[in-house]
Structure formats: C-alpha cells, structure tokens
C-alpha cells in the first residue's frame, strides 16, 4: 500500500521519501513533512536513500504521525488551524493508541506532537484517583505494602489539632 499526501502536479515536483512501517506498509511523504521529525531529518542527511524503514512503528501509528507531519508542513494552513488540528488529532483516541503515538514521537523525535500527546495524557489523568489510573491504564500496583504505607503517609492531610489542645 502506498499512500500519498501529494495533492497535484504542483506539489508532485517536490522531493519525497518513502517510509515503511514495521508491518511493511509504505507511505509516500514529502521531504518537507519528513524533516519535521528530527530523526528522519538525520537519516535523510546521512544517506541518499529515499526509503526509510522504521522497525518499531506499526502502520496505523505511522499513518497518524504522517498525517500530523503533513498538516504541519503545509504552509497554506494558518497556525490557528494547525492548533485546532492538534486538538482534534488527540481527542477521542484510545489510551493504547496514545501510547503508541507517544512512543512513535519519541522514536521519530517529533517534539511538538510529543508535547501534544503528553499534554493529552496529563489531561486524562487530571483529578483522577490513583486506582482509576491503575485500572484504566492496566498498571499493576508494584509497591510493597511498606512503600505504599509510606506514600500514603506523605500524601495525607494531617489536621493541626493544636487548636483543640490549646483550648
């Protein structure tokens, strides 16, 4: 499968690269979009090869990242539009999809997307109970009872009852 983000004869002249996901799907991406990723930029600078194989990013995640890169490389879009695209981009995604995304942005070094996804995750966790986070993110509580007791002690509100004693 070759996906293209090229829209017409004008942009077709632009340089493009092919990026292959770990499951073998190939994506045609303009170079201007690809270089928004620091790691892709490095690869392109180091070798002439127009085919980049990413061994640890699956096709779905890669498709999302490329959609993101292409949008941000589009000079025709205003910053406001890009911002609302960012918000739309991370909303309504399953937690695991976000996890793959944040791992992919880490590999590809796409700072602004990494920021957006991390922000989204933080927003999800905001005001949530620890138990909720463990359940929803499928995390084992690996604290020893002693360690947990210590954390609970640190996070407790201990009332100042001196007032009562004074009276």
């Amino acid at each position, binding site marked *: 499968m070759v996906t293209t983000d090229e829209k017409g004869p004008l942009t077709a002249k632009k340089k493009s690269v092919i990026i292959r996901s*770990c499951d073998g799907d190939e994506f045609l991406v303009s170079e201007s979009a690809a270089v928004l990723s620091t790691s892709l930029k490095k690869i392109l600078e180091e070798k002439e090869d127009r085919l980049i194989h990413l061994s640890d990013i699956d096709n779905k995640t890669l498709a999302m990242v490329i959609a993101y890169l292409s949008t941000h490389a589009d000079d025709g879009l205003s910053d406001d539009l890009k911002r609302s695209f960012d918000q739309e981009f991370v909303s309504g995604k399953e937690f695991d999809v976000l996890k793959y995304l944040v*791992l992919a942005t880490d590999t590809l070094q796409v700072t602004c997307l990494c920021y957006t996804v*991390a922000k989204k*995750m*933080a927003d999800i966790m905001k005001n949530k*109970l620890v138990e909720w986070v463990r359940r929803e993110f499928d995390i084992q509580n690996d604290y020893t009872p002693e360690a947990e007791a210590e954390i609970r002690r640190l996070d407790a*509100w201990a*009332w*100042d009852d001196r*007032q009562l004693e004074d009276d």
Partner: protein
Amino acid sequence: MAGSSRFRVSWSDLPNELLERIAKRLETETDVRRFRAVCNSWRSSTTPFKKFPRTPLKLPFPFAAGENSHPKHEGAYFSLTERTVYRVQLPDSKEPCFWLVKIEFSKDGKLRLLNPLSDRQIEIQPEIQMPKVLNTLDYRVSEVCQAYVLQYVNPSKPKQNDEYKYAKKVVVSTGVKNDEYVVMAIDDGNKLSYIKSGDQKWTMVPDNGWRNKFVDVVYVKGQFYGIDLWGGTWVFDSMFERTKITYNIYQGASKRHLLELYNNGELYLVEEVTDKDKIVCRCDDIEIGCQCNFSRTRFKNTAVEIKISRIDKRKEEWVEAKTVKDRIIFVGDDCSFSVSAKEFEGCNGTRVFYTDQYIFFRTEEEKKPHYHDNYDYDYDDNCDYDYNYFECDCCNSSDYDSGRVDNFVPSDDVKLKFRGLHGHNTVRVIIEGIREEISEQDDINELIDRARASVYPLVSLTAATAWAANRESVPTIFGINPACIAIRKPCSIAMSSKSRTEIDEAIFLPKARTGLPQ
C-alpha cells in the same frame, strides 16, 4: 496490532523521559503526587512538583521604613504562607458530591482548615468525630485556587492574634522563571507595595501623581491588576508602572473584588453594595472620594446587592455583566475564585459567596489603643457581641458600635429554622435543610446553641453541616458544599426595609434541593 516488541510495552514500562514529559504537563501538586503514587516506575522517573516561591518564605517587615517602627516589632518579619482551596469529592458519595475546603500548610506539615473566604480557622467541635488524617489518595481532590497571606511573625511574641492584619491582600506571580517571584501586597493602609526575589525591602508602586489606595489586587495570566478605592482599575507592567484601564465608579460599594471568571484572562468585578452605599454622600469629591469616613458608616450594614461587572474595553469602564451564567463565585478576603455551578447538584444560575466586612472583634477595653497603631493586645474572639468593634475594609474608617451588625428581623418561620445563625453575617450563608435533617426539636436547639457560641456563623454552620452529616454516617469533611448553601442572587433589587424579609426568605433553597446527605 503492532508487531514489534516495543508496542507491547505496558504503561508502567514507558521510557523515563516520556513519563517525565507527561508528569511535567500536570499542573498541580495534587496531580503530580497522585501520578507518582501509581507505581514504582512512575515515581522513580519523576520528581515532586516544584513550586516557586517555596513557602513559607521569609519577607521583610514592615512595608515601608518608619511604619510600624515601634520597638515591639524588633526582629519581626513576614512569613509568606500559602493556602489552597481544594474541591474534594467523597468516595462513592451520594450528594453532596463536592466540598470546598481551604487549607493552610503550616511549617510543621500540619494543616489548618480555614473559612474559604477569610483567615479564620474553622473551629472543630471536639464532639465531632473528625478523622485525624485524611488521605488525599482516597478522594478525588483538585486544586481550585491558590491564596497567599503575609503572616506577621515576631520571635519575641510567639503567640500573636493579629498576625494577618498587616496585609489585606497578597498575590504572587507564578510561572515566571523558575526561582523568581514577585509578591504584591495591599497593606493595612490600602497602599500597594511589591517585592521581587532578591529584593531586601518592599517598594511602593510608583504613584505618578495618582494616589496609592487599593482595595484589591490580582494576578491573572501573567499580569498584575489592581482596583483602587474609587473603582479605577489598573494594570501593572514589569516595572510596576500602572496604566488605567477603567474609569472610576461613582457608586459606592463596601467591597470590591476582582477575579477571572472563565480562565480566559477577562477580569470581572464583584461589588457588595450596602444600604448606605446607595445614599449619595454629600462630601463625595469626584477626584478624591469620600472624606467624611465617620459619617458614612456603611460598613455596619450587610450587603443588599451584589453587582457583577465586566470591562467594556471601548468605553474603558465597568458595565454590569448580564451574561454570567452558572458560576458559583467566591469573593473572599484572601482570594476570589469561581467554580462551575453544574458540578453542584441543585445549584442553578449564578451564586455569590462573600464576606460582609473585615471585622475585628475586641473587648471594650481593647478598643481604646486602636488609633495609636497598637494592636499588641490579646483580644478574645469569643467576646460578647455587645463589645464588637468593626473596622471598614474599604474606606479605612472605623466606628465604635455597640449595636448589632445586622438589624434584620426574620419572619417567624425563618427564625425557627435559622435563629442564631443569621445575626452577624461574616459570610451570608444559610444552610437549608438542617431542620429537615434533624427531627427532634432538641437537636435544633443544640445546633442553635452551638451556632450562638461561635462568633462566626460560617464556622458553626460548617461544623453543623459536618455534624449533621456525621449523624448519617457520611465521612466527615469540613468545608463548604455550595449545594448546601443558599445565597442571595446577584440581582439588582433595591431593598426597602419592608421587603427585606421577603427577599431573605426567597434566597433559601427549596427543600428538595438541599443536597445534604440523605
């Protein structure tokens, strides 16, 4: 699904730098503490939330050289202390869902529970089963508002009852460069001063010919704003030069508070207007304001009207806001904030919680030295009402008053429910539903007696709520649940003394919507 091993990584095994990046996006200390409590790797990869300035922070006293230079102040300093208003949800709670509590962390790590609108510590009745420790990991706790105060500390006089009187309002710039801060404070003479990290002393804001008399100061979206005694609103630049953004207001108001209502940088003004404010003062000079402080003892009356205004940028003036919807607004002495009414069952429309005045309670004997700037007396907060002493927050005037603050006489029905809870309105709050919760007449009397025994109605009301709640075996948290409290709507009703009872009755919530635990 992903074929690579990388994608079988569980959330607890995310690379440290990614976890750190997520944790950095958490904006409050509470959220970071919870994040770090999830599992070992989430804790080890992140650092505790860092706050600047770290409190308590020692700052110089007094604000200006020469002021308060009495020998008794030798060695005294200000301790910048932080208070946080939290929204707390009980686990598996029925109604009420949320409680608001204001907490001050003292030096030894202990907490003081305060009236959400003032400095007053909430008195915990010894007979109430108050848990000694409340674990924040067991509750959904979120931060609503940060407040700061300047606590007067005098090493030679460890027991100090007037520790908060020297600064009326304190704000701190946050989120500037890591360890830099700016503190702005309105002193007891309404003068606005500031101190920056590294400064050895306070500096008065440059006057440039304008008088330095401020009633409120706020820090909103990276900018300091102040409102002066005459209602003129100012914005301060990084050099603390001021620019006026609204004209003066030519109607009196006993209290004025600025706040950001919708987290969009737009300032709102909440004014408390009393009967006396509505009387046009003959000596009211347009330029410099009222001079006959004593003849305008407006502070004696409780507010009859709450006005909410927003800035009309084109006209550069405050205009009454018609569109404030579904916010519960708290305008307090040390901080003002708002929460969405939707979160509180039974709270429809806009509500405003406010304090009536700064009120210092003194005994007859202690009144006398007041004019000599000598507060070095232990006065008893529990003194008899007849010896109340009142000080106006607004015009800095004062008055001896042996009468009651509020001459409101409720109807029989209201009396039955709220006798003793209504007289001195520090915060004008009425808990509807207490009567319904408590079936025996004896209990009501007990409640009323307890309320009478306390100087501050809110204190007893809060304790009473918790007490009532405790009877239903609901975990006890002290604080305010706005759904439990009926308050005056922000409407412009010119109240005559006759209509007053009616209005006060109308502010009570219907029984079915009390929100008290069933």
